[in-house]
């Protein structure tokens, strides 16, 4: 608990909660939409080999996670270091051992983890039905359609989450992100039908 309150304090003094939340939603949305696109592509092409589908989706999920982690870490570390130097100039003192110094070293790591784990987590949830193919087939449920359904649910809930932050009516915000998902599927259907 102590480490969480300490991290919470560092997030607060650097005002990074908003950045962390934004990264979580933006990259989580990226992950969900990418999985939706890949799975829709497989569904349209009629691919039935689950191993191929899961491998492709996992590959994309891992790449999104690593990309999210590394890009956020590099940019956040540079930003935090710049802010620390500016504060040190204003304070005319070395802040390496202060909470601000610790924040400049740990906060980029926390934000990078959030940015990397969000798409990975959402991707794993979306492709989970593919791992239960035999169970779902017994109920005449196409695992690809189940994955697409979960992807739409996640996209809808991310919209609701964004709506709550922005004070927009939750259903409208959810439907807006859902529309983006439907538009993506529509474009994929159009492109693959020629």
């Amino acid at each position, binding site marked *: 608990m102590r480490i969480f309150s300490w991290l919470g304090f560092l997030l*607060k*003094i650097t*005002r990074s909660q908003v950045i962390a939340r934004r990264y979580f939603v933006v990259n989580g949305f990226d992950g969900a939409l990418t999985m939706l696109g890949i799975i829709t592509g497989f569904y349209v092409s009629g691919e039935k080999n689950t191993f191929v589908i899961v491998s492709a989706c996992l590959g994309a999920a891992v790449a999104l996670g690593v990309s999210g982690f590394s890009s956020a870490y590099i940019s956040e570390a540079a930003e935090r270091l710049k802010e620390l130097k500016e*504060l040190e100039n*204003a*304070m005319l*003192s070395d*802040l390496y051992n*202060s*909470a601000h110094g610790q924040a400049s070293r740990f906060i980029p790591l926390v934000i990078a983890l959030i940015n990397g784990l969000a798409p990975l987590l959402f991707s794993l949830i979306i492709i989970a039905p593919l791992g239960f193919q035999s169970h779902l087939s017994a109920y005449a449920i196409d695992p690809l359609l189940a994955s697409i359904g979960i992807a739409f649910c996640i996209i809808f809930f991310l919209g609701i989450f964004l709506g709550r932050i922005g004070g927009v009516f939750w259903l409208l915000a959810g439907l807006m992100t859902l529309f983006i998902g439907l538009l993506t599927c529509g474009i994929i259907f159009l492109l693959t039908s020629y």
Partner: protein
Amino acid sequence: MVSVKKLVLDVLKPHAPNSLEFAKAIAEQGRDYHVAITVEEVDEKTETVVMVIKGEDIDLNAIEQTISALGGSLHSIDEVEVINHRSPD
């Protein structure tokens, strides 16, 4: 035994943590510390505050360490109140 009853400190601190969090962190250094902070001047990244600390036996070193840990720096000790408790002979 000499004990410090009151200190008035001139401190330069970053905007975050704010004065309330700063005061709480200082107050946590002693069982009976009473801390009052007044913001004197606000700049783009820093603020100058006057900190009044009252207690039975104030530990200035612990307070100075807390100020540094929170990114602040002690500029001057503007007022002190010290009492010598003489043991009865």
